[in-house]
């Protein structure tokens, strides 16, 4: 009954009026910005991160989690209504969702996306509550060698999920690791790569990197492309799907939830992988009714449930091990560190209020989104008709204020602008920026654990293969790398990403 007791603590925290309020604000802001086309959850969280600085850590994390779910819901709405995925994990929703909207069934598509996500989110919350404590227990036994190998595995996972060239994805991760090392070295106190600039001795600002690469970079690219002409015109109609549609979607929702929950936990996994896998499964299993890609409701229900379940369970490695499994979790870790919390297995035992409050608030946030999204859909549609020439200066303003507010430093604005240029360069050269952010967060952690592991083993590098857990993880990492380099797998992986574009 440990679980019930923990959930009781969690509900006590999450249902306190002040935290309910922050969860609500987070969901609302997240949806508001997530709905806007061309702004993914990464940029949304980066933009809204400064808003949480003044809060206490628990409320701040609850609000950030709300922002994340909100941004995801918002992304699905854009995908269904205007055929533009607001974020990568709803890219697959575009296929059938937009077709449904064109056939005048936008309402049921939005409705099933919201209901499916809610069901998946509730199930995934339970999974987290049950899986986190035993995992944290195991994690407490991890030594530096295990941590190092786990990070290697996580980074290799990120390579598998990156678009395009494997070589470039690996290079981006290593660049990220290096950028993470800028600043004062904890062991020796040497300020590395700071060029005598005082601001750089604290390291490159995390918010600046995220905001520059994902916020500014996106704006510049959109301006270069020119204003998109596609404006939403279709009628939404009634929102709730019919019983028949709901019954037909239920198996897809259940399969999506299971798939998403499993794939979300894997290092490098998360919402994106989950939604792709679910779509593939539904496409294989469903033979009746409309074809996939022509407005089959299961093509919306499955991936939307899966991406929400995956988004939630990807919190598990972050909460229990302190290791982010994808770029969004890297942002969450960045936010925790700004709040002065060292992420890791000790958070659960030392700060049970924060830990369980956050988990329960995930469920609360999901419920809120259903309540928020369905009646407010009219407002979100209005937002979609706002032309980009009005949106982008406002987005830019909030980004710049956010960057400045982190340390009240004008220098950060130069750094962010440089990363904006770099983000533009990366997209242009098809070098994916998301793995770099992951590397940036893991850089110092990896170095620290490598040093400690080598010190403990008296300089013997075989330690990583002698310790059983560590060697299993490294073997997995190597296998994964070999698999993606194999020509056969590479072809299907390329196809999967082509389908998305």
């Amino acid at each position, binding site marked *: 009954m440990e679980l019930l007791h923990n959930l009781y603590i969690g509900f006590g925290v999450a249902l306190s009026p002040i935290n309910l309020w922050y969860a609500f604000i987070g969901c609302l802001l997240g949806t508001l910005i997530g709905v806007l086309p061309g702004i993914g959850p990464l940029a949304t969280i980066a933009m809204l991160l400064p808003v949480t600085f003044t809060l206490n850590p628990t409320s701040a994390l609850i609000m950030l989690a709300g922002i994340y779910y909100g941004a995801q819901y918002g992304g699905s709405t854009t995908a269904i209504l205007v055929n533009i995925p607001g974020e990568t994990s709803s890219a697959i929703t575009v296929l059938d969702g937009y077709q449904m909207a064109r056939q005048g069934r936008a309402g049921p598509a939005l409705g099933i996306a919201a209901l499916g996500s809610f069901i998946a989110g509730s199930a995934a919350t339970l999974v987290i509550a049950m899986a986190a404590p035993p995992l944290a227990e195991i994690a407490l036994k991890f030594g530096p060698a295990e941590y190092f190998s786990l990070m290697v595995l996580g980074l290799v996972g990120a390579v598998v999920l990156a678009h395009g060239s494997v070589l470039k994805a690996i290079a981006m991760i290593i660049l990220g690791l290096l950028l993470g090392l800028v600043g004062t070295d904890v062991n020796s106190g040497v300020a590395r790569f700071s060029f005598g600039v005082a601001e750089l001795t604290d390291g490159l600002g995390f918010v600046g990197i995220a905001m520059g690469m994902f916020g500014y970079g996106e704006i510049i690219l959109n301006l270069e492309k020119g204003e998109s002409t596609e404006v939403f015109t279709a009628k939404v109609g009634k929102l709730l799907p019919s019983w028949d549609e709901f019954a037909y979607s239920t198996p897809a929702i259940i399969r999506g939830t299971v798939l998403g929950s499993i794939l979300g936990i894997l290092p490098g996994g998360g919402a994106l992988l989950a939604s792709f896998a679910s779509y593939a499964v539904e496409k294989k299993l469903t033979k009746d009714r409309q074809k996939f890609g022509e407005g089959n409701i299961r093509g919306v229900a499955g991936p939307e449930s899966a991406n929400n379940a995956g988004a939630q369970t990807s919190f598990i490695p972050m909460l229990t091990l302190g290791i982010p499994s994808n770029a969004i979790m890297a942002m969450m870790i960045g936010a925790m560190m700004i709040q002065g919390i060292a992420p890791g297995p000790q958070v659960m035992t030392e700060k049970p209020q924060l830990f369980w409050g956050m988990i329960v608030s995930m469920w609360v946030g999901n419920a809120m989104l259903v309540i928020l999204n369905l009646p407010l859909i009219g407002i979100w549609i209005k937002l979609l008709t706002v032309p980009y020439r009005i949106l982008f200066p406002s987005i*830019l303003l909030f980004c710049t204020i956010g960057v400045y*507010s982190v340390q009240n430093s004008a220098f950060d604005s130069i750094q962010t602008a440089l990363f904006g240029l770099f983000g533009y360069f990366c997209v242009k050269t098809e070098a994916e920026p998301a793995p770099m952010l992951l590397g940036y967060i893991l850089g110092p952690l990896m170095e620290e654990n490598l040093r400690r592991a080598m010190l403990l083993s008296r300089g013997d590098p075989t330690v990583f293969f002698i310790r059983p857990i560590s060697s299993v993880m490294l073997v997995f990492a190597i296998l994964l790398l070999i698999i993606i380099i194999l020509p056969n797998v590479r072809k299907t992986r390329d196809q999967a990403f082509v389908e998305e574009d």
Partner: protein
Amino acid sequence: MQIKNGKDFWSGLMFMGFGIAFFVLSRDYTMGSALRMGPGYFPTVLGGILAILGLMVFARSFKSEIEHTWRIFPFNWKLFTAAVIVGIPAFILQKWMYANLGQWPVYLVNGVGIVLFFASFGKRSLYQILVITILFGYLLKPAGLVISTILLIFGAAMAGHEFKFKEVAIMAVVLAAVSSAAFVYGLGLPFPVWPELGR
């Protein structure tokens, strides 16, 4: 030799540049041994790997099956060279200029260098957006949130495709009011709203 895949060409160059830079800069820090790694160990190894990966990507760009022109963005060598010519002495002489000429020439030279650098990579929309955000950062303290916001909105809107003065003016005023209310009065961020005159 002909560049087949421009995207690999540029990213390969970039990776090599960063890899070599980190490798060379790490030489200033103690290497230590595998047993006791100094601050130079990890970055040296990573920098080396990155440089090799970059070389592989770069080499691949000459015999790639995927073809992309090398003009994937409007890169301008002249502006880039000018940025280097302005930037490097500015960086080296920074302390001297600060002591002898005051802060404004330092800002001016650095500003010119940065603008040239941004301008060498892209169209007007790119450098205008980036430069205006830097200006915003440096103006926020002395000029206050309202004036910097109005400037940012105008600067950004002019970088776009359509510029309607009336619309932008309304937007600038509204956003200045909203951001002052939300960030300064609502969230309590320590920004001045108006210029600090005579203080």
